[in-house]
């Protein structure tokens, strides 16, 4: 294993640049992109690599996000390997076609640089955009760090093509996209071997077996087709586990549906996802020194939601704080609700909404939240 990693490179990169580098290493056939902060560093980094001849992806500079996802759908249905990236209003603008990509079983990877949703405009981070697209058959995974954001691009692509579903790896806008961290790059050769070549099953360029995508489905068929998509989502976890195992072999980095940090025996547990996990880990370490035992359950795979793993991980917990980085109006919060569904009413669940529109959360605040 160690010998395989001799070509790895330790570098300090922003999340945006690291994801751009992952895209270069994958060299997808087509990308269709429209600029939006904080997704732009990803696309800029990649466009420069294409301009310098380091990748030969065809980039369609579309006139809107609606067209970005639409062009991705056309290209992916044709049989091409297709990727894109967006954020916030971009996700909302393409929302009409987001379910179409899933319904057609197209393995499009869309990197989402999470950002707040407008009402009053805000370009900073929260998870409202990801929450808006959660019910349509897209696999959604969240990263904590630049390293994880980089690794997630490869995991997402391989997963998408294996399960024939679109996948959105999420990285927090600014907190990850624009922040420099030490990380390790895989070698081009390792990446190439890991992602392999895409072999589409049904595709438009198969002229000898013409297919019709996106038919009109009436009440006699629509519900069955939705059910079929639901069942396909159920196959995701098993495949994800195979892929993460393979990835651990080439990278030494292990990923699972959830990450448990000092969770063993902890009665106080925080459940969260995204970059806040780093802050929480520091708070947990500080509290530990004071003799207060707290654990973190980090959700990596958000959709499909790992109910079983969450229930198991929280088995010994008594005080569970679920941190949502979005505000669901007129209802319980999304992650709070998901955790409740996993554990039932056997636990005391407290809901905390934090960091909307990029508001900072400090280590001390986390300590106060659960250390008392």
């Amino acid at each position, binding site marked *: 294993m160690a010998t395989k990693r001799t070509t790895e490179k330790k570098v300090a990169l922003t999340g945006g640049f690291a994801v751009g580098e992952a895209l270069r290493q994958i060299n997808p*056939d*087509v990308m*269709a992109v429209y600029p939006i902060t904080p997704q732009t560093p990803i696309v800029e980094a990649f466009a420069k690599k294409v301009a310098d001849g380091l990748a*030969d*992806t*065809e980039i*369609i*500079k*579309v*006139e*809107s996000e*609606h*067209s*970005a996802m*639409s*062009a*991705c*759908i*056309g*290209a*992916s*249905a*044709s*049989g*091409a390997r*297709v990727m894109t990236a967006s954020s916030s209003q971009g996700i909302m603008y393409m929302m*009409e*076609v987001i379910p*179409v990509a899933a319904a057609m079983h197209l393995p499009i990877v869309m990197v989402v640089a999470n950002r707040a949703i407008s009402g009053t405009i805000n370009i900073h981070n929260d998870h409202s955009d990801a929450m808006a697209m959660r019910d349509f058959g897209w696999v959604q995974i969240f990263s904590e760090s630049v390293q994880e954001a980089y690794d997630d691009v490869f995991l997402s692509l391989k997963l998408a093509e294996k399960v024939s579903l679109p996948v959105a790896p999420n990285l927090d806008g600014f907190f990850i996209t624009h922040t420099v961290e030490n990380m390790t790059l895989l070698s081009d050769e390792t990446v190439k071997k890991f992602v392999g070549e895409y072999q589409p099953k049904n595709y*438009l*360029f*198969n*002229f000898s077996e*013409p*297919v*019709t*995508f*996106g*038919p*009109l*489905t*009436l009440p006699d*068929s629509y519900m069955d*087709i939705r059910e079929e998509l639901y069942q396909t989502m159920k196959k995701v976890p098993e495949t994800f586990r195979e892929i993460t195992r393979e990835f651990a072999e080439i990278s030494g980095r292990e990923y699972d549906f959830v990450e448990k940090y000092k969770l063993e025996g902890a009665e106080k547990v925080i459940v969260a996802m995204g970059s806040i996990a780093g802050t929480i880990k520091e708070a947990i370490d500080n509290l530990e020194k004071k003799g207060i035992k707290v654990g973190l359950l980090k959700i990596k795979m958000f959709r499909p939601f790992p109910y079983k793993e969450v229930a198991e991980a929280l088995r010994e917990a008594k005080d569970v704080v679920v941190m949502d980085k979005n505000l669901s109006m007129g209802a319980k919060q999304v992650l709070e609700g998901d955790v409740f569904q996993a554990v039932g009413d056997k636990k005391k669940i407290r809901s905390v909404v934090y960091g909307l529109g990029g508001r900072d959360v400090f280590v001390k605040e986390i300590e106060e939240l659960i250390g008392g």
Partner: protein
Amino acid sequence: MDIKLNTQEKVSPMTTCAGCPIGLVARTVLNSVEGPVVVTGATGCMEVTSTIYPNTSWKVPYIHSVFANAGATISGIETAWRAMAKKGKVQVEENPRFIAFAGDGGSYDIGLQALSGALERGHDFLYVVYDNEGYMNTGHQRSGATPIGSNTETTPAGKESIGKAVRRKDLMQIVVAHRPAYAATANIGFLSDFERKVKKALATKGPTFILVFSPCVPLWKYQESQTINIARLGTETNFWPLYEYEEGKYKLNYRPKKKIPVEEFYKTQGRFKHLFKREDKEEIFANIQKINDQEWQRVLELCGENIVGKDK
């Protein structure tokens, strides 16, 4: 007309209303293609009448995504071909054509942005609009293509309403402003001219566009047998001029032998029936005729045929 039926149809009959010409639009376009073709369709009459699951009328690769994105979908498909050809993932010699079909709603209105983007980026495709002057699939509402005076569900005629109060937009000119490789108006009642234009567009590299006049029985309200006659009358009254644009130059394709008032076209359809019962009928038709004359005059000027005196 000398039309030979092709026995190797690339698209089977659709479940359209009686008298609907959109199956003919699809057939005329696809039967002009030699070799492989990929088709995308915007949501609309052609799409819902050709893809009722588990059946499909399309014997060629076909994709429908949503209403607003035919231009973007065909951009993705065409780009995928170039990308995969470059990497040796497809048989370059197959050299497929890429065709988008959309109605007037999906082109003049909700799909205009996607069409504009695709034209500006210079993709190699043919975009065909079957223009039936309204939203028919949803039950006959006005669109940007609906002419002044039309009684539609969203512009109902009444004591205080002549129906649609404003003129239609000129999509051909909007498209030409993008400087496409080729653009033309066509008419389902002038089938040979339409077919020639399709062949021309398919043989031209870059973005090409054809706007086909396609009467609709339920909205326009006429006898099913009259589709072609009414379509032809549209051009004979200069309501639907036939012209094309190529390399910066316009060409007029048909000049009516005599000037027929546009009222004659309006008379044939129930959607305009209310106009004829109004007290201010003469004033209304004077205005409609004025708009018609202005538009015709503009087409003549563009085509370098600015000789009004020759109109008898």
